[in-house]
């Protein structure tokens, strides 16, 4: 799986952050403070323009102090009452139609999806989860954006505000109510999606008896049979059976089948195995040794536009070295202690400068090294399986380079639980490419259903943020305007990085005003604009006005793309709990911040005073 950004442990992420980033909590407070100050200044300016500076100051102070005391007096009972109202309102607005649309999409999904593919599970999971995301976000948008404006329009808000309920409770109650509706919808969609994927991928084969060839052992004894299965779901497997008639098939389209003998020339083929997985990787830290033996942070570039991986050259000292922490023989505790191995998974990206021997895989070696004592194991050869996850179990008993027998966990793991994995390419003129996530210690697979549920949580997080934004903005503007605002918020959220790149000048072509000039004059982004007064004015406007505003807005935008964990499920990896907690924490931050903002915005309306 491609992991472009390293996932930090939850508390590190929350408090201290990574190498070049601040902790989430300090970031939240800075942004919160910034927004609060901006709101205070704007509020004071409006009040001062209406009532004069002194009176305006009084009004502002009163609003803030009352607001803070009201927020502290928020009563869960009243919030729940409003939430129930929001749920009833959603039901009245036939939110269940979304479910109908979802099931309609599933009904016709097989028109566009095919099981006759190298990775059908990936295709199906991506499809259903992406469809669920868009549908749920759409429902969240419509529910939240039109709710309060409709109440204002139909005057039903008056029946609410006459009750002893505070403005903050109206906001929070609606957010919670709509969130409950969304949760219900998502739960049904999630279950439906999972059943759809499992049922769509399910198939079986029969064993083709006429394809059998007898396999003989070294002494000429009958060692089993080789053959093929029938062709079903657009593919067939080759199979190998032992002398008792049991065995398994080769991997085709991302799965295998177990075969069991149930009588003479009768076999039972299991349903597909390994379609949906939840691998639990333990990642290490990657560094490189170059061809001259010097230590480097990255390998060499082979000219690929995508710089995710860097490369080591074959038959030179160039090496990729991963350092893993917390290594012990308890990684896979199932086998007896003496038989425990170190389960590694390796993804190699092969780059060739000459054809080599056609049909023959490139060779590499793996060595393990104790980072303290530098004791290193003898190289273990492997065939490079380009762009595939290669599961390699390193046995406990190994030989050192001086051919002494050593114990992997006792001799090669340092006292603080560290071990180094060294990978080399053996073929001259050929290259292996690696990224940090390309080698990991493979813990026993997690539950695919639990992992799937965690993906649904990440969708839920996005929907709750949309609901919060929708409810908050709808306190101030009419329904259609609120909807447009939230659509804009979602679009900017999905392309947040591009937005930030424009704001910080990383993108070519300047800011929004310069863009208009370039479009009008048909000057592409690489063309230097002429040094005219108009162009200077435009650049100045972008530099001193538009870009700072964009930067400030970007600080409050969620990165919707980074919330998506669909890739984990699609690629067969478990969604880490750190990731789930981080997403839920961000969501909570938005709910709190937007509830407070929504409260003050609602207070500006006559009805809520």
């Amino acid at each position, binding site marked *: 799986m491609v992991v472009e950004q390293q996932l930090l442990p939850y508390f590190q992420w929350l408090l201290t952050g990574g190498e070049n980033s601040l902790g989430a909590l300090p970031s939240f407070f800075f942004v919160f403070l910034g927004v609060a100050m901006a709101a205070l200044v704007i509020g004071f300016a409006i009040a001062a323009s209406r009532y004069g500076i002194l009176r305006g100051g009084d009004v502002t102070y009163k609003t803030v102090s009352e607001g803070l005391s009201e927020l502290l007096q928020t009563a869960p009972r009243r919030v729940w009452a409003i939430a129930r109202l929001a749920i009833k309102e959603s039901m009245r607005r036939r939110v269940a139609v979304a479910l109908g649309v979802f099931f309609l999409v599933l009904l016709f999904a097989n*028109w566009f999806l095919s099981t006759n593919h*190298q990775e059908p599970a990936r*295709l199906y999971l991506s499809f259903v989860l992406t469809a669920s995301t868009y549908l749920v976000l759409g429902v969240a948008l419509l529910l939240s954006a039109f709710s309060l404006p409709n109440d204002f329009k139909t005057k039903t808000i008056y029946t609410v505000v006459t009750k002893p309920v505070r403005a903050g409770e109206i906001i929070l109650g609606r957010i919670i109510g709509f969130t409950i509706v969304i949760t219900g919808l998502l739960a049904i969609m999630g279950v439906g999606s999972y059943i759809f994927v499992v049922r769509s991928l399910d198939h079986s084969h029969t064993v083709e008896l006429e394809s059998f060839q007898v396999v003989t052992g070294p002494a000429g004894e009958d060692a089993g049979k080789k053959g093929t299965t029938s*062709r079903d779901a*657009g593919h*067939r497997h080759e199979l190998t059976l032992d002398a008792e008639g049991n065995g398994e098939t080769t991997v085709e389209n991302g799965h295998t089948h177990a075969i069991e003998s149930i009588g003479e020339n009768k076999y039972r083929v299991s349903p597909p195995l390994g379609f949906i997985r939840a691998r639990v990787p333990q990642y290490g830290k990657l560094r490189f040794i170059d061809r001259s033996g010097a230590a480097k942070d990255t390998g060499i570039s082979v000219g690929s536009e995508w710089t995710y991986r860097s490369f080591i050259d074959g038959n030179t000292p160039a090496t990729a070295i991963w350092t893993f922490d917390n290594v012990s023989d308890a990684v896979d505790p199932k086998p007896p202690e003496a038989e425990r191995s170190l389960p590694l998974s390796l993804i190699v990206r092969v780059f060739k400068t000459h054809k080599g021997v056609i049909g023959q895989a490139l060779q590499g070696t793996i060595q393990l090294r104790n980072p303290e004592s530098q004791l290193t194991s003898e190289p273990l050869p492997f065939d490079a*399986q*380009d762009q595939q996850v290669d599961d390699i179990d390193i046995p406990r008993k190994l030989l050192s380079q001086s051919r002494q027998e050593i114990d992997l966990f006792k001799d090669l793991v340092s006292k603080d639980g560290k071990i180094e994995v060294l990978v080399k390419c053996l073929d001259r003129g050929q290259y292996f490419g690696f990224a940090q996530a390309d080698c990991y210690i493979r813990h026993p697979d997690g539950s695919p259903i639990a992992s799937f549920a965690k993906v649904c949580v990440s969708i839920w997080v996005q929907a709750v943020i949309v609901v919060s934004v929708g409810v908050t903005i709808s306190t101030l503007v009419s329904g259609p305007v609120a909807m447009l605002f939230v659509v804009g918020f979602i679009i900017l959220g999905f392309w947040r990085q591009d937005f930030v790149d424009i704001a910080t000048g990383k993108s070519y072509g300047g800011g929004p005003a310069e863009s208009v000039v370039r479009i009008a004059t048909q000057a592409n982004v690489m063309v230097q604009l002429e040094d005219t007064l108009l162009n200077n004015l435009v650049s100045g406007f972008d530099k001193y006005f538009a870009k700072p505003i964009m930067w400030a807005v970007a600080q409050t935008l969620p990165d919707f793309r980074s919330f998506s964990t669909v890739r984990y499920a699609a690629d067969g990896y478990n969604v880490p709990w750190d990731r789930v907690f981080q997403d839920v924490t961000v969501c909570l931050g938005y709910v709190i911040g937007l509830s407070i903002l929504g409260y003050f915005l609602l207070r500006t309306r006559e009805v809520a005073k």
Partner: protein
Amino acid sequence: MNSNNSFFRKMVYLLILMMVAVPIVWLGRPSSPGDQGGKLAQERTEARLGQADLGAIDPASETIRLATLGLRGIAVTMLWNAANNYKKTEDWTAFQSTLEQLARLQPYFVKVWQYQAWNLSYNVSVELDNVRDRFYYVKQGIEYLMDGIGYNRDHPRLLDDLGWFTGNKVGRADEHEIYRKLYKLDEDLNPNDDPTLRDNWLASKHWYEQAVASVDEKGQSLSTMNPTTFFDSPARSQISYAEAIEEEGIFGETAKRAWRDGGRLWKEYGEREMPSTDDFMIKLVDENKWKLEAARLRNELDALDPGIEAKMKEEAQGQLTADQRRVWEALPADPSADEQKWHTEALGLMDVSVPKIAARIAKDKPENAAKAQSLAAQIEDANRRANLISSNRDVANYEYWRIRCDLEQSPESLKARDFAHQAEKRFAEGDPEGARELYEQSFVEWGKALDQFPEMPRDSTTGGDLMEFIEDYAVVLEQLDLSLEDEEVANRFVLWELLEINDQQRKFAGAIEAYKARKAGMPVPKRAEPGDAAGPNSLINPAEAVPQ
């Protein structure tokens, strides 16, 4: 009064509506079985613009296009961007599924099918290391084209591409040995297990024939495709099939039949009437016919005023200045500007062309003027046709392949190839002595075969093929501590003429010199040692270029 007005107005409206309805019905009435429909429906049928005429109507595609609610252009742009991004980030599964969505949004845009099929078969396949994975994406490109043909029935360009992918990508890639085996075993590419389509080259021929039929029978346009290289494709695939089976060790009657079919198709191709770049049709076999016609007409023209050409040349020579005559007779090796000018002037004066002769006859013998002008025009036309055919024959290398098909059917050629194949096998099995003997027998048979076809150019593809055998033979000799420079070996070797012509890399320069010296009774030159500047090891091995 008012109610009457209102009634009258409604009647007028009704009348206008009925009047408008008449042309609408006449124009727009849909067609149905047994009814050609309105004028538009008839025009659509005639121009084959109806969706059903283009190809299959896919409900999924229609649904997707409708579901975009008029934003198809935006959706397509986003999908193209997504596909480019997936390709960049090597996410082949997502890339492929994006292409499928793209195709459903633009099913009748032929360039999409062409471009993305090429992407899959040629660009994505090479990104993978495992040969089976490579073949998987080659096959995906082929299937993508097949889907495209489903939507765009009888489209000659797509059919031609399909023939190319099936033939050349599978049969000419470096991995072609494995690809061809995988192709034969594949159940998706030949779902009905048609034995004639199991071989990739025969399947390629099948698709090319469909492409040709779409032009011949369905009236499809060739568009910008060159007719000379379009119509020769079925024959070329058949020839490639014959070459491929011989490479795989199938000889005898099967190989002979394959070459015979190739020769027949090539002959049919030569006899086909094809559009040319001029305003007339051509047949490649007609080159001689037009040359003879031009000669006959020229004789007729000369007969109108015998000796006129010689007379005109004499007169023209008389008009040359001294300088012009000097440079016309012998242009200096490094002519000055003036000399160049005089030479051009002299050539202009000395050019006694057919129109000039005709004009002179018309002047000298006015009674023959009309006939002379007519003959001159006919001669020019015949020459133009002969020249055009000649250049198109060169484009297709027509003559070479015609002879080659005949040569390969000869018992000597079949035997020669069989011997060479056995030699290769024998060498791989560790029997260099046996391999040497077989190679030598093969060369003897090749000698006999080539003697039967003296018109076969010795520096042609066949020469190149034979050079591969000779190089393999040299390796065998090296194992036996022998070389082509050795007198005994050289005496047994019979293809010296061919070797000399085709040894462009001068790998056998020493052996050739030694052979020539021996033949002329001169002393044999000293043999170049390996590592000499011009020695056999002077080429750089790419793997050696890696710094240590």
